[in-house]
Every structure is written in structure tokens, then in C-alpha cells.
């Protein structure tokens, strides 16, 4: 079968997807079928929280694709995530219709507030779901394409690339803070009512979004794994390890890089689009360089160049964040900072690398015993 072929030799991926499948079955059962009050019952807010983690995990997979396999440390993937989120947010904004505070069917509330008379051109079409979904893919993809094409063609690599990706998301952060941009300025887009006619407050919609996030994660994972297993993936890894050599062998290195970078940005956009309806808000804060760099640490903790490590890292770090910001808000930043330092110093291969090390040791011992 197609999927089994992709997952050949990917023990971690098999386990991860199996667990994901289990979760995707178990959570709806615990939430919808187990009656409230039963201690096995899973409250809806927890489902939404899990859904949020899953979108983060998809984002981490996208980052791992470029960082782990292409060797590009992108400090701007939060920008693609946020752009996907904004595209979805714009659709949700249009869905509000005349139920806003000002009751204007043609304009979102913040535009009425800013005294705008008509919908700006870049908001046109966002009342159609299919168009918005297209934009979720196209806007981050196009930005990544143009940016990547410019950067890779002039052979900006390594740290320089990292810094200009950071500058990119910083510039977008500043831009989206401006009211004149027409994306709600400081407050962003919020107060969403429903999606495709289903209320965002209902348990069923939330469950659907959760399941969709899980499926998107599985799909994104398989796509990345497929790319890496393909011939193109081999070249990508070759570029990571010896860029000049690959170029001299005759490959157009820039083309491969741009291609993978764009795919990764689109995945990040999808993650953002799934994130927004579950969280209920998108604001310029998502563009902050800190967010982008946090994504990188998820991947680093889980283990670069494994994909499933990224999923593991994203979920673990965010779970820890939820727990510690709830218990001791001050301590979380210290822990995050310490994580950055300790992981880079002592755990360069991440958790996945740790597992592999243990496995290798066990294998060696068995060999020695035989």
C-alpha cells in the first residue's frame, strides 16, 4: 500500500501515526459518547487545547522539513503560519455578516470603526470558503517562493538567511500592527461566529476541527516523508550536507531549495488556518520573532531531521508551557531559556536522537553477547 511504502524504515513515524490515530478515535469517544460527569469524560476545552497542539505539531513538521533536511534555519516560519491564520480569519470575519457590533453586513466591525466606506480589494472574495482556503495555501506559498527565489538565487545561506527570515517576520509584525493595513491592526481579527454555517462554539464543530487538525498533521507528515523518500528528497539532503558539491555535480540547487521552502511555508499556512478557528483570534503578535524562534526549539528538543521528533517536541513543549504558565507564570520563561541552552549543549540530536542512541547501544550489546 502507498502509505506503508512511505513509512518503510520509519519506525518513529509508524508509532507516531498509530498514536495519532488512537487519539483521533479516543478523544471523540471520550468527549461525545462518555456522559458528562463521568470521570472518563473529556471536556471540550481540552479537545480544543489538543487541537491547538496538533496544529503546532504540523507547524513544527514544516520547520523540520526545511531545517532538518534542507539545512535552512528559518526564523520566520511563524510569519507563514500567521498569514495562513489571517486568510482563515478573514473568511471567518466575513462570515460574521451583520451580526457584528455595528451590524454592517458589508464591512467588518473594525473597518466601520475606522470609518472605511467600502471593502478594500484584498478582502474581496474572502466570503467564499474555497477562495479563502486557496489563499491559505497561496499567500504563504507565494511569499516563500518570492523570498526564497531572491535569497537562494543570490546564495544567501546559513546565519545570514536566518537573520533575514527574522527580519521578514519582524517587518510583517510592524506592518500588521498598522491600522491602515486593513487587517484589524493591534487587535487583529476576532469575535468569530461560525464556519461554513456551523457555530464555532458548538462541541461538534470543535470536535470536527480537532479531527481535521489531526488528519492535517498526518497528511502533512506523510507528504514530508514522501518528499524526503523521493529522489528529490535525496538531493535535498545532499544540498544540506554539501551544497557546493551538489551544485557542481549539476543540480540547480536553488530550484530544489525554493521548492521545498515553498511547500514548507504552505504547510505552515495550513497549520495557521486550522489554529485560528480553534483559538478564536489572530493578531499581529503571531508574527513576533519570538514565536518563530520558539518553533525552532520545539524541533530541536524533539530532534532535527526526524519529523516525528518535531511532532513530539511541539506537543511536549507546549504541554509544559500550558502547565507551567498556569502554575508559575514567571518560571516558564526561565525554563524555556534553559531549554534552549541545555538542548543545544547536551542534546544536539533531541529526544529522538536520545532514543536512537539507546537503541544503538542495545543493539551493540546484543551483538557483543552473540
Amino acid at each position, binding site marked *: 500500500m502507498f502509505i506503508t511504502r512511505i513509512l518503510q524504515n520509519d519506525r518513529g513515524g509508524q508509532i507516531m501515526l498509530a498514536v495519532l490515530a488512537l487519539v483521533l478515535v479516543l478523544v471523540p469517544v471520550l468527549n461525545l459518547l462518555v456522559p458528562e460527569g463521568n470521570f472518563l469524560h473529556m471536556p471540550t476545552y481540552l479537545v480544543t487545547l489538543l487541537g491547538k497542539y496538533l496544529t503546532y505539531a504540523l507547524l513544527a513538521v514544516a520547520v523540520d522539513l526545511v531545517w532538518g533536511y534542507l539545512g535552512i*534555519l528559518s526564523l520566520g516560519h511563524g510569519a507563514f503560519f500567521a498569514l495562513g491564520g489571517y486568510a482563515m480569519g478573514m473568511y471567518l470575519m466575513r462570515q460574521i455578516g451583520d451580526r457584528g457590533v455595528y451590524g454592517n453586513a458589508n464591512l467588518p466591525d473594525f473597518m466601520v470603526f475606522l470609518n472605511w466606506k467600502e471593502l478594500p480589494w484584498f478582502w474581496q472574495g474572502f466570503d467564499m470558503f474555497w477562495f479563502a482556503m486557496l489563499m491559505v495555501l497561496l499567500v504563504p506559498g507565494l511569499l516563500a517562493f518570492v523570498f526564497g527565489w*531572491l*535569497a537562494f*538565487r*543570490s*546564495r*544567501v545561506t*546559513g*546565519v*545570514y538567511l*536566518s*537573520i*533575514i527570515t*527574522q*527580519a*521578514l517576520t*519582524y*517587518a510583517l509584525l*510592524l*506592518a500588521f*500592527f*498598522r491600522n491602515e493595513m486593513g487587517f484589524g491592526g493591534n487587535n487583529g481579527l476576532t469575535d468569530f461566529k461560525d464556519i461554513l454555517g456551523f457555530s464555532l462554539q458548538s462541541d461538534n464543530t470543535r470536535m470536527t476541527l480537532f479531527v481535521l487538525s489531526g488528519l492535517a498533521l498526518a497528511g502533512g507528515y506523510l507528504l514530508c516523508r514522501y518528499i524526503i523518500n523521493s529522489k528529490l528528497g535525496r538531493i535535498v539532503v545532499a544540498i544540506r550536507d554539501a551544497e557546493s558539491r551538489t551544485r557542481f555535480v549539476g543540480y540547480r540547487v536553488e530550484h530544489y531549495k525554493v521548492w521545498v521552502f515553498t511547500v514548507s511555508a504552505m504547510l505552515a499556512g495550513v497549520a495557521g488556518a486550522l489554529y485560528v478557528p480553534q483559538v478564536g483570534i489572530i493578531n499581529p503578535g503571531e508574527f513576533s*520573532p519570538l514565536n518563530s*524562534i520558539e518553533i*525552532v*526549539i520545539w524541533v*530541536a528538543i524533539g530532534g532535527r531531521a526526524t519529523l516525528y521528533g518535531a511532532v513530539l517536541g511541539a506537543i511536549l513543549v507546549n504541554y509544559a508551557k500550558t502547565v507551567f504558565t498556569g502554575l508559575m507564570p*514567571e518560571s516558564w*520563561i*526561565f525554563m*524555556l*531559556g*534553559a*531549554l*534552549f*541552552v541545555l*538542548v*543545544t*549543549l547536551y542534546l*544536539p540530536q533531541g529526544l529522538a536522537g536520545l532514543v536512537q542512541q539507546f537503541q544503538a547501544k542495545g543493539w551493540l550489546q546484543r551483538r557483543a553477547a552473540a
Partner: protein
Amino acid sequence: MLKTYDFTRLLLLSVLLWVCPPLQAEQQSATLTQAVPLFQAASFDKTREAVDLLAVSGDAEAVPYLQALLDGQLYQHKAQGTLVIAKDGNTGDELRKIPTNNSLRKYVRAAVGQLSLSHPDAVVRLKSANGLLETVTPEMAAQLRGLLDKETDSAVKEALSLGLAMADLNAADKAVRLTAIESLAGNLHPGVRNRLTTMTTDSDTEVAKAAQEALRSIEDTAALYGHVETLFFGLSLGSVLVLAAIGLAITFGVMGVINMAHGELIMLGAYTTYIVQQLMPHAIDYSLFVAVPAAFIVSGAMGILIERTVIRHLYGRPLETLLATFGISLILQQLVRTVISPQNVPVSNPSWMSGSLEINSVLSLTYNRLYIVLFCLLVFALLYFVLRNTNLGLQVRAVSQNRAMARAMGVRSARVDALTFGLGSGIAGVAGVALSQLTNVGPNLGQSYIIDSFMVVVFGGVGNLWGTLVAGLSLGVVNKVLEPWAGAVLAKILVLVFIILFIQKRPRGLFPQKGRAAGD
């Protein structure tokens, strides 16, 4: 009982007196005594005569009385007729307030100005000459000409002739008006501009035309000074950028270490200034001279600590260094939040930093910006000297160019690494002292400068101090030039986009390193 009452009244009165209390008539000068009966008449016309008398006398002693008359604080003793200045309305029955009205006040003001023009202090003369500018009457003009001839101070002279030219604008003779207009062309005084604007509608077309031309030349000059001001703002912003980036130019440019905690080292410097000021609250004026070395030591020591504990293990792995130092930056920020306060802390400016250097009425350069520019150049020169002319600088350059060879020559590369990083971090601390004088000091201070700093270093060309200076200053100027028509935020975005595009074109910056040192 009655006696004590009177006594307290008297006491109160003398307390209320403004300048040295001239209660007795014989203490007042002759002209003042002359004016007394005129004031006593209690009619505006007579008072005006009295003012005239005082103004013509040139008696400087009369100035405080006229000033008091203006402020409604001049009283006359009913019985004795002596003039009394009382700051408070509570003066009792013996005193009568000398009434004024608007036209009289205007008159008195001119008289005060005229009198102050013969004051021995040039500063007072200049002030009064400037006050007179728009109120010079033909009668006063003759007297002013006399004063102008005697005047020795050039600034007062200039102000007086300006006032005279303004008076000439009202002259009946057309030729006089025309020469006056001509002499006013290019003058930046706001009063001149207003006066000339009204003259563009003069009934005489020739005069109106001349006024228009003079106005145009004034506007051109003003625009020129406006550009100079923008340039100055740009240079001061650029100096801030250079100060923030120059430490990075060493750690990133020379050592190749990505230090994302650089901004936090700047922040530590700013907080050091705060703490120094807390320790010496009575000597704020001198606090910066203590804060600069203190900040250098604090940030430098922190830098060495970071280098020895973390960065040392990550040489040759720039991306990992980036992540680890980012973690350090988070920890330092949170440390400041927990230990000091999550809010901004107040840092005061020394008195010599406030105020401004007035070049003319359009252009004035604030001292704090001026000092920042000078300070930036000083730091740059020092750093350049250290890298060029000291043993440490030689070793730093040797290690950065070829580590193995330098080690073979007996350079202790690990020590040099630590010291170089300490130097770069110390400079960041010094930059923090400068920033504390310009912006709010809070835990996020450094974060807002880190991206800008990297941009400056990358734009200027890594490993090139001159590049950093040129890049920082030019980015500052470009930012300020764009600001008026694009707004501050958009200007910043445009500059970022410009740099991103620039790096595509010239990945190694404005001044790339050439030859072997460039190899990586």
C-alpha cells in the same frame, strides 16, 4: 494692641516687597520721584506720561516698577505717594493699586524693552531687543538708532537692526520700505515672516512683489535648515544604531559568533545606569561618568561568563549558537523582570544633557542627541584604536583570520576569544548607558534593538568596523528622511525591506572583506 497690629502689617508688607524694598521716598531716584505726582492723578493719560518720563530717562532702576505695573503689582502709598511693589493683593488700606488697561500695558511693555536696552548686561539687552522686534514705533526708532551706534555686542546689534528694519516696513517712503524688505530677505525670525505675509497684499505692487520674493527666499532658507535638522536627527538615530551594533560588529563580525543576547547586554548596561543613579541620587550630573565604566564592566563580565559557559562549546556551529544565546537572552530578560521590576524604571538625565543648542530660530539641536553623536564617534574611535594599535587587537585579528596559525604562533586563542567577547559585550553595555538617556529602560529594551543591530552589521559588511559606522549612520538618515512622508513604522518597514533586497544583491554587505580573510 493697635500698635502690634500696625507692626505686623508693616512686617507683612516688607515681606511682600519684591526687589530691595524702597519704602521711603528719598531712596527712590530722581526720575521716579518726578513720576510720582503723575501716577497719583489716577488717569490713564497721566500714567502714560509717567511711563514716557521713565522710558526716556534711561534709568534702569525704573524697570522693576514698570514690570510691576504690567503685572498689576504696582501700588502707591495713599498718604506718602511712594511707589510700592507688592506681589500679593493683600496690602491693606493705605495702598492704592495703579490701574492699567490693555493699550497702556502695550505701551509699558515697549517702555520696559527700551529701558532694558541700556542695561549693562548684554544678555538682558538681547532679550529686550528681541522682545521689541515687532513693536518698534517710529518714535522709538530714532532712539534705537542711537543705541545701535553705541552697541558693542553683535547679537544685540543684529536684533536691533532687525527691529529697525521691521519698523521701516511701516515707513511712508516706498524706497525705505523696499530696502527694508530687501534687508529682511532670508531672515528666519517668525515675526518677519508674518509681517512680510501681510505685506504681500500691499497696495503698491512693487512692494508686494518684493515682499513675495523676500518671503520665498525665507522659505528656501527655512527648508534648507529643515533638511539640516532631518540630517541631524538621522545622524543621531544612526549613532544609536551604530552604538547598538558596534559591539555586535566585534562578536559577530570579527569572531563570527551569533549573539542573540546582545540586546540584553545593552539592557544590562541601561539598568547599570539606573542602579548607579540610585546609589548616587545627589550627583546625577556625574552619574554617567560612573555608569559608563560600570556598565562596561557589568556587561563585559556577563559576556565573558556567557562565552566561557556556553558559546565556547559551540564554535563552528553558528545555528546552535544562535539558539543557545537566544535562550540566554530570555533568561536575562526574565531575571531583570523578577529581580528589579517588570515595569520600566526611571533613569534621569543629567542637567547638562537637557536643553538645546540654538543655531537660529528654525534650527536647534538638542544636547542629548548632540552628545549621543559625539559619544558614538568617541566609542568608535576607541574601539578602532584598540583593534588596530594594541596587543589585544593584534591577537584578535590574528585569531579571527587564522585560528590555527595564530595558535601556532603562541597566541592563547581561548583567552583571546573570551576577551574579545568580553570587549564586544562591554561595548554593548556602554551603548546601554547611552540608550538609557534616550528611551525607556525596561526588560524589553534590548529586544527592540537586536534585529536593527544585525541589519546594520550585515548591511555594512561583516568584519568591518568602518562598514558598521557607515551603515548605521546611513540607515539612520534614510529612516529619518523617509519618516515625514511614510510615517515612522512604514519607514522602518521600508528600510528592512531595502536591506533584505540589498543582501540579495550583495550578500557580503557594503564593504565586503577581501582576500583570504573573506574565505569561510
